[in-house]
């Protein structure tokens, strides 16, 4: 029995169909991140879970009971908003305690609960201040305190970090993750930032245009994307997507990729059975930047490595890594190499392709070409 079950949920705003049948199940203690570009319906879905938006079709079940018609205050949820939505006329303690006060919790008990949460979030010294006197990060903590104090079954976060500056955002991200690990709470979290999604989630739901593109663990979504959209959306720098042709070379299935004057024949390792049907047809190959590297950095234990000399177009050092850009199939391709002795632009250097991590997509439908039962592909996050 799943803890939160979003069962074929639709949303219509007049003529427009905003959510087109979303199915998501998560377990107690899961950290579900809804991620997607703006307008994909993720915030609408969150508002529907909160009860701030009505559900046009489908059912929402929390811990086995249908909550479609329940008022937000009776769903046993708490929400942290993007703008923090603190009540400016009340002190921090008043803000945190407001929900308890509305639920007629006795004053002494309320004060103890506020104190407990303030200690947890290290905001005890701010309790008597007004929100207007707090910094962005402190407001964020108070907003979280307001959610935590009621000890609800489900926490909802609506892009809570997007108003913070970059450094603080990373710190708060870590803190949210620690909080989740410590308290074991169930969280639904909306963001458009795929790095936030990767770092925080135990389950990621990638959405686009009101449809669920993929639901799975962060690693599954990253390594085994369902379609071109998920492949391109998750990961930074994003996955290299290169046009190629599948061919049979002496009984070995290869992907032919144009590289300047020559053609590379990358051996097909993954999804071989499915790709056999694509012989002599165009596909879109997906390779993460870290799957293209220099021969010494290549991971020879797990994967099959294919090496080739290619012309360097551009070199981008980031300190930790060195991104080397070359041209494959008419497209600039990012390779992640060891920093140190960078190759010069215009020269040839040796690239090592980890072809066991290569994925292929149908360029027409944008769907992944994959063998149904793949050992390393847990497709949908099944709740066992």
């Amino acid at each position, binding site marked *: 029995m799943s803890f939160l079950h979003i069962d074929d949920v639709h949303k219509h705003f007049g003529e427009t169909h905003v959510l087109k049948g979303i199915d998501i199940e998560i377990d107690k203690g899961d950290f579900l991140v809804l991620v997607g570009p703006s307008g994909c319906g993720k915030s609408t879905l969150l*508002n529907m879970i*909160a*009860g*701030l938006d009505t559900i046009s079709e489908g059912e929402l079940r929390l811990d086995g009971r249908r909550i479609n018609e329940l*008022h*937000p*205050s*009776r769903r046993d*949820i*708490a*929400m942290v*908003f*993007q*703008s923090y*939505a*603190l*009540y*400016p*006329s*009340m002190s921090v303690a008043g803000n945190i305690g*407001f*929900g308890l006060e*509305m*639920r007629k919790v006795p004053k002494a008990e309320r004060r103890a609960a506020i104190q407990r949460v303030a200690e947890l979030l290290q905001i005890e010294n701010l309790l008597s201040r007004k929100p207007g006197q707090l910094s962005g990060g402190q407001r964020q903590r108070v907003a979280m305190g*307001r959610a935590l104090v009621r000890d609800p079954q489900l926490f909802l976060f*609506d892009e809570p970090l997007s108003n913070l500056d970059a450094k603080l955002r990373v710190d708060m991200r870590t803190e949210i993750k620690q909080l989740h690990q410590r308290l074991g709470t169930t969280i639904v979290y909306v963001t458009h930032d795929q790095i936030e999604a990767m770092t925080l989630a135990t389950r990621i739901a990638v959405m686009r245009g009101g449809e669920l593109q993929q639901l799975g663990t962060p690693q599954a979504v990253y390594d085994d994307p369902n379609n071109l959209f998920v492949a391109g959306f998750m990961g930074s720098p994003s996955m290299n997507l290169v046009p190629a042709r599948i061919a049979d070379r002496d009984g070995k299935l290869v992907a032919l990729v144009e590289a300047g004057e020559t053609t590379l024949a990358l051996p097909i390792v993954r999804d071989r059975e499915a790709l056999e049907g694509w012989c002599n047809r165009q596909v879109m190959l997906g390779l993460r930047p870290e799957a293209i590297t220099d021969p010494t950095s290549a991971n020879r234990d797990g994967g099959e490595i294919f090496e080739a000399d290619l012309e360097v177009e551009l070199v981008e050092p980031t300190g930790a890594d060195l991104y080397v850009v070359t041209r494959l199939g008419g497209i600039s391709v990012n390779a992640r190499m060891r920093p140190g002795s960078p190759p010069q632009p215009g020269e040839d250097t040796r690239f090592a392709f980890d072809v066991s991590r290569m994925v292929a997509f149908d360029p027409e439908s944008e769907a992944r070409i994959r063998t149904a039962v793949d050992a390393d592909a847990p497709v949908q996050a099944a709740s066992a």
Partner: protein
Amino acid sequence: MSDTAAPPGKGARERLQRWLPKLVLSPSCVLILFFVYGFIAWTSYISFSNSGMLPEYTWAGLRQWSRLWGSWTWGIALHNIWVFGLLYIVSCTLLGLLLAILLDQRIRAEGALRTVYLYPMALSFIVTGTAWQWFLNPGLGLEKTVQALGWESFSFNWLIDSNMAIYTVVIAAVWQATGFIMAMFLAGLRGIDGEMIKAAQIDGAPAWKIYLRIIIPQLRPVFLSAVVVLAHLAIKSFDLIVAMTGGGPGNATAVPATFMYSYAFSRNEMGIAAASAVFMLAVIAALIIPYLYSELREPRS
């Protein structure tokens, strides 16, 4: 200054550029100095003189002031302005807030309704006063119409009842200003973060508590502006009363402004009128100056 070193043409142009804004502004500065502050000073001086029908410049000390405060009519005028001002400010604020809250419920035809409520503000006080005088006149308006419809015993003669006449002025004034106050509150309500209301819903607050505890406290600056605007309108109220009751019946609706007018121009007591005018100025200044100071001060971070 390097005026001597610069070529003569360039120096002249620079000088002109420096002086041009001052030149352009100075006529209006002079006019304001003379006609506003000059006459304030002149009126203040007159209030300490022996002026009667015509201004006269012999110093009389506080004679006019003590006559003003000894005047029975001035007492009535002060009492009336208290009653009028208090009822006017409180009713306009509460009604304006209520209308704004109702209009803020995403109702249909909100734009049209907003305009309807705002229209009275576009009328001059003279028009409002005349229209309400007709409407409340027992022989012409509401009373006669209702009686003609068959309710023979209906009576609404506050306009000519010296105990009640001041309330008819309040009704007309509230009718005129409520829409404007509503617009101020509506703007304030629109500025409130919608997520805050969602948060309060999740916190389990019923709608009236959301308004009472979260929204209305945030409208404090609007309340302040509304009270200041209404208070100075109330103290300055003159044309509405002249058009509606002429200060009557008797002195029943006399306020300081009508008192000042009648003492200056029909009772030939310019000294007392000047004293009352200076007193009104002082009260309005006491209201407006702290308000302007708090509004124009550098905004806090």
